[in-house]
């Protein structure tokens, strides 16, 4: 059943012990690293953000035509990273692809934390973040609601829905595992597991319902994934700005999101495997093989759409588009960044054509990192850059991020890592029951068909 798996020799008991071991058994070094990242997040993110809220958005490098800087870049980037997780779970669940099982939890967790950063970046980029709740439709004495034709309201709904669904999806998978581990665990973990599993036992009816629910979720989340990132792209495409107003944006953003998401999953798995050698039993070369193929295919799709983005601009041939493209493609340092982006996202993933590379250290670490960098650059080259060359040349201005923006970006990345590391210490990062399923149903007499 499980292609390429050498797990049939494992017993259910091993699985339980391995996974609970990941949660509990870590050296002090792990906690120190996690703590360092946490402290880094506090220093690089919390303090500058507090400073920004106190002093004003002026501490960022934004200026009059370039009102959207790297906060929005990060926002879009993290939405992208968030995409792979649920999509891997959902799409591969519907198709019942077995290699999904070992990696789905990790991917979903990544989605969850990425979405946290997405929400965070919306608040960070606001001028008056303390009034963020005005963007939600809720009844107040003011009698005023929200503007339902604003792309930002679509965002509120899309990202709100996506966050909720991702949490629910993650939780669904967790329930049986938590119930199972609550019998092994002790102390506060036991209490937490017992509380969160709400008395799950694993009766036939429960499993049936759980399976059905996952199926429905998958059916919901597939269109949701597409809609979320296209809605994010509408934030830009629904404007008039040259460089923003493009019909190609929805597929372009979705493809890019998946590309960065898969690269993120790849990187995350590689790092986890290094941190927990026991995971090598579960995440094998076969996984790298499959994900690598995904990255390759998505990179080709992305490259095509990038080409089309430029070509549509050239075909339009308006002064606005031409100037925008000139600025993006032929002005240093953006020209160099563009070349770097093409190298990272188009040229580099081609190495995945070679099967061996997919499982190599280069393929596991270097390529995904560079793909992520390339995808970040893609957003950078779209968002602030287009605003630098709007309609009235008199107002053309360049944009350069300040230390606050860079620090907040790095700090949030650190926060992501430290939160992920903490999550691993609390919840099983490999889906217990799914791995057991992978091993197969124990039979005494008859062979499993």
């Amino acid at each position, binding site marked *: 059943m499980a292609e390429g798996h050498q797990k049939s020799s494992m017993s*259910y*008991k091993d699985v339980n012990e391995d996974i609970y071991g990941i949660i509990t058994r870590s050296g002090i070094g792990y906690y120190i690293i996690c703590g360092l990242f946490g402290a880094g997040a506090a220093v690089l993110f919390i303090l500058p953000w507090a400073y920004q809220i106190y002093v004003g958005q002026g501490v960022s490098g934004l200026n009059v035509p370039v009102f959207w800087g790297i906060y929005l870049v990060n926002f879009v980037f993290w939405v992208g990273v968030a995409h792979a997780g649920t999509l891997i779970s959902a799409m591969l669940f519907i198709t019942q692809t077995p290699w999904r099982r070992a990696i789905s939890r990790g991917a979903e967790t990544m989605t969850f934390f990425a979405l946290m950063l997405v929400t965070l970046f919306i608040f960070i980029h606001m001028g008056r973040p303390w009034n963020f709740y005005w963007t939600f439709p809720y009844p107040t004495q003011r009698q005023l609601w929200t503007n339902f034709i604003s792309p930002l309201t679509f965002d509120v709904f899309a990202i709100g829905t996506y966050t909720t669904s991702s949490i629910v999806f993650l939780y669904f998978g967790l329930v049986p595992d938590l119930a199972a581990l609550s019998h092994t665990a002790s102390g506060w973990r036991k209490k937490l597991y017992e509380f969160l599993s*709400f008395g799950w036992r*694993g009766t036939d*009816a429960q499993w*049936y319902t759980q399976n059905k629910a996952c199926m429905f979720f998958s059916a919901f989340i597939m269109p949701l994934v597409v809609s979320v990132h296209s809605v994010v792209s509408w934030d830009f495409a629904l404007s008039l700005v040259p460089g923003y107003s493009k019909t190609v944006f929805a597929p372009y953003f979705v493809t890019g999101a998946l590309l960065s998401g898969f690269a993120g999953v790849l990187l995350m798995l590689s790092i986890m495997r290094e941190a927990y050698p026991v995971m090598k039993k579960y995440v094998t070369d076969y996984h790298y093989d499959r994900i690598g193929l995904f990255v390759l295919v998505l990179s080709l799709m992305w490259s095509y759409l990038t080409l089309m983005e430029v070509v549509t601009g050239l075909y339009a041939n308006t002064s606005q588009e031409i100037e925008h493209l000139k600025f993006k493609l032929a002005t240093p340092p953006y020209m160099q960044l563009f070349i770097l982006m093409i190298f990272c996202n188009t040229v580099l993933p081609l190495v995945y054509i070679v099967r061996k590379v997919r499982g190599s250290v280069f393929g596991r670490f270097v390529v995904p990192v560079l793909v992520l960098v390339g995808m970040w650059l893609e957003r950078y080259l779209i968002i602030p850059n287009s605003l630098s060359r709007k309609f009235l040349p008199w107002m053309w201005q360049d944009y350069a991020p300040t230390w606050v923006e860079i620090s907040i970006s790095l700090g949030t990345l650190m926060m992501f890592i430290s939160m992920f590391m903490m999550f691993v210490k609390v919840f099983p990062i490999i889906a217990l029951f799914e791995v057991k399923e992978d091993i197969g149903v124990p039979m005494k007499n008859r062979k499993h068909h």
Partner: protein
Amino acid sequence: MATNSVLAVFDHVDTLLEAAHRCKASGWGFQIISPIPLGHEIEHEFGPRKNWLRWFTGFGAINGFIFGWVVAFGLSVLYILPRGGKPILAATPTLLVSYETTILFGVLWTLFGFFVLCRMPVISKKPFHPRIAVDGFGLLVEGVREDNIPLVEKILKEHGAGEIERIES
């Protein structure tokens, strides 16, 4: 009529299913408690099943769709502020909103349905054996008359059950 239940833990699924067949034939109710989903095997053995979850989901989705339209249209009319020369009741953006609310409500109602159908959260203590959390497969035989308990235990033993527990109701 005092009824009692028996929980037996099996090592193998096929033996468990055989035991379950016997119980079914004897007219006793049974539940299979397992660490992994056995839907495929059970359906193969006892035929396809259905439950109410789809209705929850469907209800949620339809509700969400309607909610999206009501919210976007209704709230626009409550406080009329024209913007961008677009109509107050604009259909396209509303479709986008209701698309999301359809999914949101569908998901939330599915979650609700999941809890309802799984009888969660559990209020009272339910029969369970710690081995099931690891690698045991439990067969909970229910609706057994008290005097039939030894018979049940015997049948389960025959099919290779490991631990057997009587459960007082």
